[in-house]
C-alpha cells in the first residue's frame, strides 16, 4: 500500500510538468488580457516537433541528448510563433478571443496530426530523457523518490514557478503585463505600447505551451499520437482560473489535477475492478466542479481579460 502511494506521488511531479508549463504560459497571456484557448493546439504542435527531431536523428534508436534539447528548443520556438500568430488575430485585428482560440486549437491539432502522418507515420517511440537523482537528497526514503528523482525538465519547470512569480510581480515587464491586462487605457496613457506588450506575453505564453507539449512527447509519453494532449491544453486554461492568476496557486492546481489523472493508474495497479473509462473521466469532471466553485465573483481576474484594446474607441 505504501509502495503504491509512494509510486503515485512520485509520478505526480513529472506528470504535472506539462500542465504546469502550459498553465504558467496561459497565465502570462491572461494577465496581459488575452484569453488563449488555442493552448491545446500549440501543445500539439510542440509535442509533434519535439519528438520529430530526436526521432529523425535516431530513427527511433538512441540519440545524443542534444537532439532532445534541440527538440525542446524547436517546440518553444514554434510555440512562440503560434503566440505571435494569435497576436496578429486577436491583438492587431481584435478578433473575439474565445472563438479564435478554438480556431487555433483546431489548426494546431490538425496540422500536428497531418505532419505527423507524413513525417513519422505510425506509433514510433523515442528514447526520451533520463531521470537525474539529486545527490544525497534522492537517498532520503520516500521523499527522495517523490521529489528528487526526476528528469531535468521537471526540475527546471518547478524552478520556473518562483521565477514566474518574480517576473510578474517584481520586474518592469511584469508590471506592464499586469497593467495592460487590467487597465490598458491607463497603460497606453503612460506611454506603454499595449499591443506590443500583449504580443510579448503571447510569445512567452506560446513558447511555454510549446515546451509543455514537447515535454509530453519527449519526456513523458516518449512518442506522439493524435490523442496525446487530450484536453490538457484546456485543463491548463481552467487551472489559470483555479489558481487565480497566481503562479504558486497554479502550481498547486497542477499537482491536484495530476493526482486525479494518476488515479486510473492506482486503480489498475491495485487490481480493483473499476471501469477504466470512469477513471479517465475524473480530471475532466474535476475541472467542471472546480470551475463551478471558482468562476463566480472573480475579483482577482484581470479586468480587461478578453477585451481587445482600441485607443480610438472610447468605452
Amino acid at each position, binding site marked *: 500500500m505504501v509502495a503504491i502511494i509512494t509510486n503515485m506521488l512520485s509520478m505526480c511531479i513529472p506528470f504535472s510538468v506539462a500542465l504546469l508549463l502550459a498553465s504558467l504560459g496561459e497565465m502570462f497571456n491572461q494577465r496581459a488580457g488575452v484569453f488563449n*484557448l488555442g493552448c491545446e*493546439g500549440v501543445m500539439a504542435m510542440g509535442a509533434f516537433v519535439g519528438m520529430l527531431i530526436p526521432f529523425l536523428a535516431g530513427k527511433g534508436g538512441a540519440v545524443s541528448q542534444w537532439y532532445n534539447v534541440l527538440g525542446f528548443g524547436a517546440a518553444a520556438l514554434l510555440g512562440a510563433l503560434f503566440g505571435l500568430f494569435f497576436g496578429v*488575430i486577436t491583438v492587431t*485585428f*481584435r*478578433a*473575439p478571443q*474565445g*472563438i*479564435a*482560440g*478554438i*480556431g*487555433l*486549437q*483546431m*489548426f*494546431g*491539432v*490538425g*496540422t500536428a*496530426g*497531418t*505532419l505527423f*502522418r*507524413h*513525417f513519422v507515420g505510425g506509433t514510433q517511440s523515442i528514447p526520451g530523457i533520463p531521470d537525474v537523482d539529486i545527490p544525497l537528497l534522492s537517498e532520503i526514503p520516500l521523499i527522495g523518490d517523490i521529489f528528487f528523482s526526476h528528469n531535468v525538465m521537471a526540475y527546471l519547470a518547478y524552478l520556473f514557478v518562483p521565477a514566474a512569480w518574480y517576473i510578474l510581480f517584481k520586474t518592469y515587464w511584469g508590471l506592464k503585463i499586469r497593467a495592460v491586462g487590467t487597465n490598458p487605457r491607463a497603460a497606453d496613457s503612460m506611454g506603454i505600447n499595449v499591443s506590443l506588450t500583449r504580443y510579448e506575453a503571447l510569445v512567452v505564453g506560446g513558447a511555454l505551451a510549446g515546451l509543455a507539449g514537447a515535454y509530453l512527447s519527449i519526456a513523458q509519453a516518449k512518442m506522439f499520437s*493524435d490523442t496525446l494532449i*487530450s*484536453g490538457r491544453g*484546456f*485543463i491548463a*486554461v*481552467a487551472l489559470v*482560473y483555479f489558481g487565480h492568476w497566481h503562479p504558486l496557486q497554479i502550481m498547486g492546481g497542477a499537482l491536484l489535477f495530476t493526482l486525479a489523472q494518476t488515479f486510473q493508474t492506482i486503480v489498475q495497479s491495485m487490481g480493483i475492478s473499476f*471501469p477504466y*473509462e*470512469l477513471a*479517465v*473521466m475524473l480530471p*475532466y*469532471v474535476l*475541472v*467542471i466542479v472546480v*470551475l*463551478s*466553485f471558482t*468562476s*463566480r465573483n*472573480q475579483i482577482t481576474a484581470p479586468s480587461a481579460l478578453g477585451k481587445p484594446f*482600441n485607443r*480610438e*474607441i472610447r468605452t
Partner: protein
Amino acid sequence: MTKSFRIAFKVSIIAVAAIAAILIASIILWMIGADVSDTFYVIIFEPLTNMLHISEVLIRAIPLCIIALGISVAYRSGIINIGAEGQMAMGLLAFTGVALAFPDVPRPLLLPLAMIAAMIGGGIWGFIPGILKAKLNVSELLSTVMLNYIAAQFYSLCLRTIYLDPAEQVYGTGTPQSMRLTENVWLGRITGRLHYGIIIAIVLAVLIFILMWKTTMGYKMRASGSGARAARYGGISVGFYLALSMAISGAFAGLAGGVELAGVHRRAIEGITNNYGFSGVVVALFGGLHPFGIIPASFLFGLLIYGSTLAPTMVGVPANIVQVMQGIIIIVIVTAQMVLSNAYFQDRVWRRYQALRKKEV
C-alpha cells in the same frame, strides 16, 4: 463614402481573407510534399463528379446542418457551444437505448420516440454548461470541452458494457459496438445511402428561422446575446434564455446523432460523431449564423469532409487536412468580420483611396 467603394471594400476584404486561408493551407500541403492544386481539386471538385459522391457529401451535410443550426441558436444567445460532439454522443446513447429497449414497438411510434430521446439526451448535455454559465459564470468554452471528453468516455463505456452486441460476447472479437438496431427506428433511404434526414434538416432550418426572428422567445434570446446587460435591465431573464438556448443547441446535436444513427449506421459504433461537433461550429460561422446560410455552408463542409477522405488514397494527403482547413477558416472568418466592421479602418482606406485619386487627376 460612396456605395460602390463600400462594396469594393467588402469584396476585397473577403477576397484577401479567402486567399489568406488558401495560402496557409497550401503551406501545410507543401510541407508534406503534396501537389497543392491536385489536393484542392480532389477535396473540392472530385466529390462533385458523380452521383454516388454527391450523395455521400449530402450524407455528411445532414448532421452538420442540424448541429450548426443548434450552435447558431446558442451563439446568437451569447454562448458558444463547442460541446456538440459530446451532445451528439449522448443523443446516440439515448437513441440506441430506446431502440434496444423496445425493439417491438411499431415504427410510427418508436422512431419519433427514439428521436425525442436523442434530443433529450443531447439537450441535457447542452443544458448543463448553459445553466453553469447562467448561474455560476462557468466559461462554456471550457465546460463544453470537458463534457465532450466525459461523453466520449461514457459512450465507450456503454458500448463496451450495457450496449455491447451479444454476438461480440459470444465470438469475443471485442469490437465495442451495439447489435444492429431494429428496423423500426430506421430512416428510409432516397438513393444510395442518402436518407430522409435531409428533409428533417431543411424543415429544422425553417423552424429555426421562425423561432429566432418571428417569435418573442427568439427576440429575447437574440437580445440576451447581443446585449446581455441591457436585456437584463429590460426585464429579460438572460440566464434562463442562455440555458434554454444551450438546451436547444444540445437537443439539435443529439437529434443529429439520432438521424445519423437511423439513416446511416443503424447500430452504435465508435467514431459516429466524426468531429461533426467541431465542424458544426465552422459551418454555423460560415453560414453567418443564419439558417439559410447554414444550409449551403453545410453542403460545402460536407464536401470538404468527404473530399478529405478521398485525399489519402488519391493524393497521399492525410485526412487530418480537413481539420487544418476548418481551423484556418474559423480564424479567417472571425478576423475578416472584425476588419469589415471596423469603421475606422474603412475610413482610413477610403481617405487613402481618395488621396490616390487626387494624385492621378
